[in-house]
């Protein structure tokens, strides 16, 4: 069935219901029903219920929109609405730690959304359509030539970024272990159970429609999935917070699904097992996390504590809670007869099948590794997959033993825990019971339930029908499951009990605190370094025109002044050089050397005296003049004298000559 609303949102919204979509629409509705019912009691004493239910409903509509969408545009529209609406549910209690976790969730969602949007731009530009109906054929045509395939790979990588972030894929998983523990338990169940699956949905569509059977794409996705499942398992093993453990477990299970999606692309035509495995693990994980988070929610709702050392022993003498939690734990641990076993077996078989293909010399076309190298690599990945399964068993055992088997270290607390009083309402008990009962039903009758879901879903994912029906309870398949369980038991006793607990039996968080991508890399990079760097350049750019406009008039002013003055300056230069006028004689000491200097000196002395001791009767006489007068008189007199002496001498000389002449004559 197909619906389209061409007039909405510009490009138009299209929806379609087929097997796969129907499955997830049903699961979404079922999970919302259960969690909403559970919320009644969980949030009985919390404030702002109207806000919570409003945004819960909005998230539901958006999630349905994502699963029912029939083109990437519609998917994206609802995906973004879902991110924002679920944010409000996550931060319901508004505590500082919650706000921080919510901030990280929102930041990852917004950044992821934008990168995905870029991918969709590129994809729409390359393929010319975003419709799931037309995308496959358009992309087949493009993938034929290397340039087109490169464009598709870039677009796919961008799309993977945002959807992978939602699916908790490494290295964008940071929000997942933070947001789940702080959100209200029903919201955690939804976040983990179904909202992360919308991310998986996007990756599935890219893998099936855009880059179907592309080995490079499959290899990258497979590697990212492997890292995610290992890291998630490891984080869960170290965690001492019940909801955080479950959150990291989600990350690990999602890693397995992503790994399976990668295998789909790698396996090419033979991908039936991987397709069915990833779809069924999505279905199973949704159901499992619904049960587990609600069980954890019951504990939180009663105790308002999450730390394993504090809630230890709470579950003793509470058979309903124990049964519910146990079925979830067995299911997620991949124990046969429970649902997780089925999908994990399929995923494992997918890897095994690929290794067989490699042994046969087929299926490997990537240039950077030889076929034998690839065989080794995938054998390692198979064992890592089993190890992750083992880790799942180990951390679920840790939770179960802690809450339901061991006694609290403080006997008084244990006594309080053991008191017989109702810890859940009747409604909640029914909700828990029904959700938990679904798990073994799915696990015991896979042929009737899970296989049919897989049959209905594989068409959308372009999975080939399997060559033969899988016998889940055959010896080889049971063997794989048992290996995982064995690893899990060993891990629990050798690792958890020895390394992660101290002598008194306290659970310790030995995960080194600095080893956190968020505080180690993302926050310094995105909040400090990049804004500082670009902020600096932008500030320069911002101020530069202003500065230029401020300096420009000054520079222009100087230039204009120079121009303005230039003619005057020219005239001045001529006057000083070629057209120089006769020198101005000015005052000069000609004639009266003595009077000028001595008088000047006396004047100076007189000035000093006038300022100091002769204030009342200052000397007003100018000594230069008076001295000059005297000097002039003196010189005049001396001139007169010298003149008269000379005259006398001349007269004497004349007389002497006359006398001499007379004597001679």
């Amino acid at each position, binding site marked *: 069935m197909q619906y389209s609303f061409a*007039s*909405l*949102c*510009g*490009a138009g919204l299209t929806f379609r219901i087929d097997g796969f979509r129907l499955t997830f629409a049903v699961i979404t509705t079922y999970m919302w029903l259960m969690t909403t019912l559970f919320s009644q009691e969980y949030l009985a004493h919390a404030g702002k219920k109207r806000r919570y239910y409003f945004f819960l409903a909005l998230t539901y509509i958006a999630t349905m929109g994502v699963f029912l969408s029939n083109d990437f545009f519609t998917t*994206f*529209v609802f995906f*973004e*609405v879902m991110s*924002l609406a679920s944010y409000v549910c996550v*931060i319901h209690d*508004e*505590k*500082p730690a919650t*706000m921080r976790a919510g*901030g990280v969730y*929102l930041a990852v969602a*917004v*950044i992821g*959304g*934008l*990168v995905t*949007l*870029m991918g969709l*731009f*590129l994809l*729409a*530009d390359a393929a010319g359509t975003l419709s799931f109906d037309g995308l496959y054929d358009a992309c087949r045509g493009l993938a034929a030539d290397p340039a087109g395939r490169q464009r598709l790979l870039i677009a796919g990588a961008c799309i993977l970024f945002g959807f992978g972030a939602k699916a908790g894929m490494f290295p964008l998983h940071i929000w997942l272990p933070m947001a789940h523990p702080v959100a209200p338990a029903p919201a955690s169940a939804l976040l983990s159970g179904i909202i992360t699956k919308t991310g998986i949905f996007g990756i599935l569509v890219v893998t099936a429609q855009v880059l179907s059977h592309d080995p490079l794409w499959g290899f990258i996705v497979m590697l990212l999935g492997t890292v995610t499942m290992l890291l998630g398992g490891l984080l869960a093993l170290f965690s001492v917070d019940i909801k955080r453990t479950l959150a990291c477990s989600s990350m690990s299970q999602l890693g397995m699904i992503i790994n399976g999606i990668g295998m789909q692309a790698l396996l090419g035509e033979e991908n039936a097992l991987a397709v069915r495995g990833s779809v069924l693990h999505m279905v199973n994980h949704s159901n499992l996390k619904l049960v587990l988070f609600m069980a954890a929610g019951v504990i939180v709702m009663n105790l308002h504590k999450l730390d394993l050392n504090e809630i230890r022993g709470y579950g003793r003498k509470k058979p309903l809670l124990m049964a519910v939690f146990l079925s979830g734990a067995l299911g997620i641990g991949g124990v046969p007869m429970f649902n997780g076993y089925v999908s994990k077996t399929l995923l494992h078989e997918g890897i095994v099948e690929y290794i067989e293909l490699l042994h046969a010399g087929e299926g490997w076309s990537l240039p950077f590794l030889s076929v034998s190298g690839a065989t080794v690599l995938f054998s390692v990945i198979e064992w890592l997959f089993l190890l992750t399964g083992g880790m799942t068993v180990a951390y679920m055992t840790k939770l179960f033993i802690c809450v339901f088997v061991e006694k609290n270290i403080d006997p008084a607390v244990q006594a309080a825990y053991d008191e017989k009083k109702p810890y859940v309402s009747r409604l909640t008990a029914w909700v828990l019971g029904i959700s938990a009962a679904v798990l073994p039903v799915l696990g015991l009758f896979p042929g009737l339930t899970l296989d049919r879901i897989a049959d209905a879903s594989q068409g959308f994912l372009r999975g080939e029908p399997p060559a033969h029906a899988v016998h889940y309870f055959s010896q080889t398949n049971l063997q794989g499951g048992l290996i995982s369980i064995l690893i899990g038991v060993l891990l629990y006793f050798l690792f958890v009990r020895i390394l992660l607990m101290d002598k008194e039996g306290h659970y310790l968080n030995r995960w080194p605190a600095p080893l956190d991508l968020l505080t180690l890399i993302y926050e310094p990079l995105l909040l400090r370094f990049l*804004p500082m760097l*670009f*902020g600096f350049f*932008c*500030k320069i*750019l*911002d101020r*530069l*025109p*202003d500065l*230029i*406009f401020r300096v420009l008039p000054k520079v222009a002013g100087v230039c204009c002044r120079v121009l303005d003055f230039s003619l005057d300056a020219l005239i001045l230069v001529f006057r000083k050089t070629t057209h120089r006028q006769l020198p101005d004689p000015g005052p000069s000491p000609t004639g009266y050397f003595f009077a000028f200097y001595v008088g000047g000196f006396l004047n100076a002395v007189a000035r000093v005296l006038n300022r100091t001791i002769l204030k009342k009767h200052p000397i007003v006489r100018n000594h230069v003049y008076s001295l000059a007068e005297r000097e002039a008189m003196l010189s005049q007199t001396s001139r007169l004298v010298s003149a008269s002496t000379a005259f006398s001498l001349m007269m004497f000389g004349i007389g002497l000559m006359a006398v001499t002449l007379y004597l001679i004559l």
Partner: protein
Amino acid sequence: MSVLTLCPMALCLLAGILVGVSGGRWESSVHKITAGALIANLLLTVLICLQPSENLSLTLFHITTELPIAFAVDTVGKLFSLLIAFVWLMVAVAAFEYMPHEGAEPRFFGFYLAVAGILSALCYSGNMVTYYLFFEMMSLISMPLVLHSLSHEAIMAALKYLFYSMAGAFMMLFGLFLFAARGSDLAFVPGGCLQGMTGDMTAQVALFLMIVGFGTKAGMFPMHGWLPTAHPVAPAPASAVLSGVITKAGVLGIIRVVYYMAGVDALAGTWVQKAWAWLTLVTVFMGSMMAYQENVLKKRMAYSTVSQVSYVLFGLSVMHPVAFTGALLHVVFHSLVKDTLFLSAGAIILKTGRTKVSELAGICRQMPVVMWCFTLVSITLIGIPPTSAFLSKWYLAMGSLAGGLPVLSWLGPVVLLISALLTAGYLLTISIKGFFPEKGEAVDLTPCEPGWHFLVPMVVMTVLAVGLGIWAGPLISVIRQAAAVLF
């Protein structure tokens, strides 16, 4: 019928003069006259928009024999005029509550009305000379809106606004001279009149100068400096229209120059297009980054405007019908969003006196309706679907990729998305802090919602900003129709 084209302008100018010269005499009726005139303006504009365009051209008089003051109405002009008349009325309603607190209302509303009239004439201008005439008048008459408070900063800011406007206008005028020297009569012809003149350096320089000149009003780097200075000091309604509407007059100018005078064929692929596109991308990024680091709320909005209007300019610079559609959509959406944002800032200033972002913890509990509008339009501006700006960004990015400019075709969308991320950083953080103040922080939680004068326009514009994203069909088809004649 063609006289109808001039009616909105004449009406608003007369009302403006009436209000302005009345001084304090009819203080009580200032609001009534303003409201009446703006409602009549909106109705007249709707009436004009419903008329077929051919009936609405007229030539008023000739400056010289070759330079007529002429009016002609087309789809783009109708779209702009309708948007402007609507937003102008909405902001005026909020101003009725805001302005008593600033005083000197007759002066403010007088100039406010006059600018509305000029803008109407601007939208209907039929040639570049007319456009230039009204553009200059708009710069001059809108300046008193900036210096309204008459404080030293306000006057200096107004002078800066004037200086930038003049610098831009003269660049434009110079380009106009060069262009006219090519023998063009400066009339607006859809598709332009420069076909076959590719490689003509004079015309290209002229066009580049005109683009940068009009870019001044649109806040395009390097002429964006007036925006962050003028906005914080202007009264909130003035900032709202400066940012939301008057910047769009620059955009309209660029549309007229590029698509109606030069034509896509003459510019596509030239250095003018590339340089212009680069300038817009620099502006987009720089504006967002500066907004992200700015603490004064209205200044943050101003930088945001710098960034967002350049989204529009980027779309125009791509010269592709899809990007053109995105650009015009973004004109509409950004007007609605930015006016709502500035009105929220005005409500906050009016009711609490807070101007800094760091003081806004808990504000959403004090004025929930205002801040819900703020949050929704913020989400719109970031471009989160299904709100409207998502749509415009979708068209912008698809157009950019389809336009096929080397490097810019993919760099454009990348920059737009990085800027969207920064937009989330500088807007959503306000809402988050406002709705969920950290425990232990000293927060004032007394309710202080403003009156209906503020709330009604804000809610109306928010509903439009969000709703137009979902039911954008008619708007898109109108814009497609406008784009069809240009490419």
